[in-house]
């Protein structure tokens, strides 16, 4: 079935982004219990329920066209959102193949990939694109392969090189990131770019996760969910743009909390790439306003309890300190104290 795109939504200025009831129903709610702490919450990235955001390796939803337009705007105004070190070119082609073949296989009504040897034709109907290029020859594309294909995909993408017993962030596209900078992190290893995360290193989470990812196998991708909160449905919360968004944290009042505050969930997936032996790391951002969230009663109750009990170091790291109390008071109106059922789905 064709997806009904909402091409005119905005993620800045007038913020017209909204979730349809269907989009709310398939939102990847992240809290498995009424409290939250870091864990190695990595699971196989295998097909999930039909219509859910886990149905296909790369999820396309009603926000696709608008998100691609937002990405193009970010690239036009701040070109350092796509960066790639020269040794990552084989990995860029691997990523192009993975993304293009996933989209065309899973959404044939919207995308088509025709291959004749290394001569490939790519059709993207929602964006009105039709291009021919030679796989492996960057001169046949208007931009580098990772930039080309991720201009046509929702979510941020990083390419991790594996060497010296570590993973290195050596290429990426990031325009919808939760306060981390590609330009700053480029060339860092797994331990370095996780440096600012509190508590997790002491819990041994990173050592175990790195060891696990170094053995990631072709054909066996994995995923995890990560979360934070954002004021307004703003995709671009990069540190470079923080003058435009950080002050919004002071604007939350009991009257506007339901509209302004959004739960921001990242569906992160990791794939071993076959020709380059690199890893593709996708970070897909889903935004839901508190008003939309509490339409699922269990999610409202549980989010209230998680935020109320959240460790102070996490409140600080996730930037929630200024409005947490206001938000918890607002959410209390949706928590009648009844127990929540196991799992993340609605009751």
């Amino acid at each position: 079935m064709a997806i009904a795109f909402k091409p005119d939504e905005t993620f800045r200025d007038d913020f017209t982004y909204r979730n349809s009831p269907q989009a709310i129903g398939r939102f990847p709610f992240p809290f498995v219990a009424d409290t939250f702490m870091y864990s190695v919450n990595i699971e196989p990235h295998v097909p999930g329920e039909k219509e859910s955001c886990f149905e296909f390796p790369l999820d396309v939803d009603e926000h696709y066209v608008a998100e691609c337009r937002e990405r193009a705007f970010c690239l036009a105004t701040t070109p350092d959102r796509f960066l790639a070190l020269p040794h990552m070119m084989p990995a860029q082609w691997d990523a192009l193949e993975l993304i293009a073949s996933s989209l065309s296989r899973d959404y044939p009504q919207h995308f088509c990939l025709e291959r004749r040897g290394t001569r490939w034709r790519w059709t993207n109907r929602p964006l009105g694109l039709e291009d021919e290029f030679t796989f492996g020859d960057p001169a046949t594309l208007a931009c580098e392969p990772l930039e080309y294909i991720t201009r046509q995909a929702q979510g941020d993408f990083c390419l991790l090189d594996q060497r010296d017993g570590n993973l290195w962030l050596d290429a990426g596209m990031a325009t919808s990131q939760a306060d981390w900078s590609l330009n700053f992190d480029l060339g860092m290893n797994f331990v370095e770019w996780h440096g600012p995360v509190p508590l997790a290193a002491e819990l041994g989470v990173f050592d175990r996760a790195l060891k696990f990812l170094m053995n990631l196998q072709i054909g066996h991708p994995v995923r995890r969910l990560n979360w934070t909160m954002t004021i307004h449905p703003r995709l671009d919360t990069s540190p470079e743009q923080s003058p435009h968004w950080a002050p919004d944290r002071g604007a939350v009042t009991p009257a506007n909390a339901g509209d302004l505050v959004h739960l921001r969930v990242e569906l992160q997936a990791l794939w071993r790439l076959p020709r380059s032996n690199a890893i593709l790391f996708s970070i897909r951002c889903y935004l839901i306003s508190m008003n939309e969230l509490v339409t699922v009663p269990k999610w409202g109750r549980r989010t209230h309890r998680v935020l109320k009990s959240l460790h102070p170091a996490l409140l600080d790291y996730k930037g929630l300190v200024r409005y947490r109390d206001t938000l918890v008071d607002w959410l209390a109106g949706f928590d009648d104290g009844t127990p929540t059922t196991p799992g993340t789905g609605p009751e």
Partner: protein
Amino acid sequence: MRHDEAIPVEVAAVEQVTPLVKQFTLRRVDGGPFPPFSGGCHVVVVMHGRGRTFRNPYSLLGSPRNVDCYQIAVRRHDAGRGGSRFMHDEVRVGTRLEVGHPVNLFPLAKLARKHVFVAGGVGITPILAMVDDLRSTSAPWELHYRVRGPEHDHFGRKLRDENGNRVHLYYGSHGQTLDLGRIVANQPLGTHIYTCGAEQMVAAVAQAAKAAGWTDSHVHCERFVAPPIGDPFDVHLARSGVTVHIPSERSLLEAIEAVGVDAPYLCRGGVCGQCETEVLELEGVLVHNDHWLSDEERAAAKKIMPCVSRARCTRLVLDR
């Protein structure tokens, strides 16, 4: 690799390339292309023998640009556990086998300014595909390859025909030896060295590089060990609730698999760490043959790598 995801293949060609080595060309039973791979990859080949399943890792030696077939080379080990004898004696054109997805534990260093390869015997196989990957880069490389004599030099001659004086061949029967001190001396900054061959050769290259002031990060080796034969012993698998006998010529991992217990693995050669298993009880000593556990971990005797390691014991209980 999970056992249900192995790719069914048929042997399309068998070639005796040296007195000890046969080369096998494998095609998918469904006729499709194989997964793409990178130079340095291995696959685990699953062989169903009479009453016994062998799973041996072999490097992919064909060009990564051609995935219509996979190619492996198998050296015959008469004193081994039987996998290579099965490949040499039982496998012919048309034989059905299975292969897992490729895994690369011996990748090229993408930032290297120059690549130096040192190989012995059948250790040349991963390097054949690595050299093919280097065609798409401008990085210079050289190969030093030692075999017993000219009759063992099928792959070396092939590489020299294609690459000329980048390839240096050494024949033991002609008294030609690798001068490792000279090879590692005066290499340009940013050179990486890779070895694959017998344990003594790998160790000698590492030692020569260290003596010449190389950093460890620029020295790479493929040091899969075949599971050695040892004393028989019994193991109790606590989670599965079964006791398994490990005969001399079977590895702990193979014996665990044979009783139907699913155990994780990638390399089956003691290097990747995937099969690491907790030792719950031990009366006796562990015989560690892997390159994964640290000296402290070996001394603590709380972990074992069942793909290659064994025990001399009266009681062993594993968390599996």
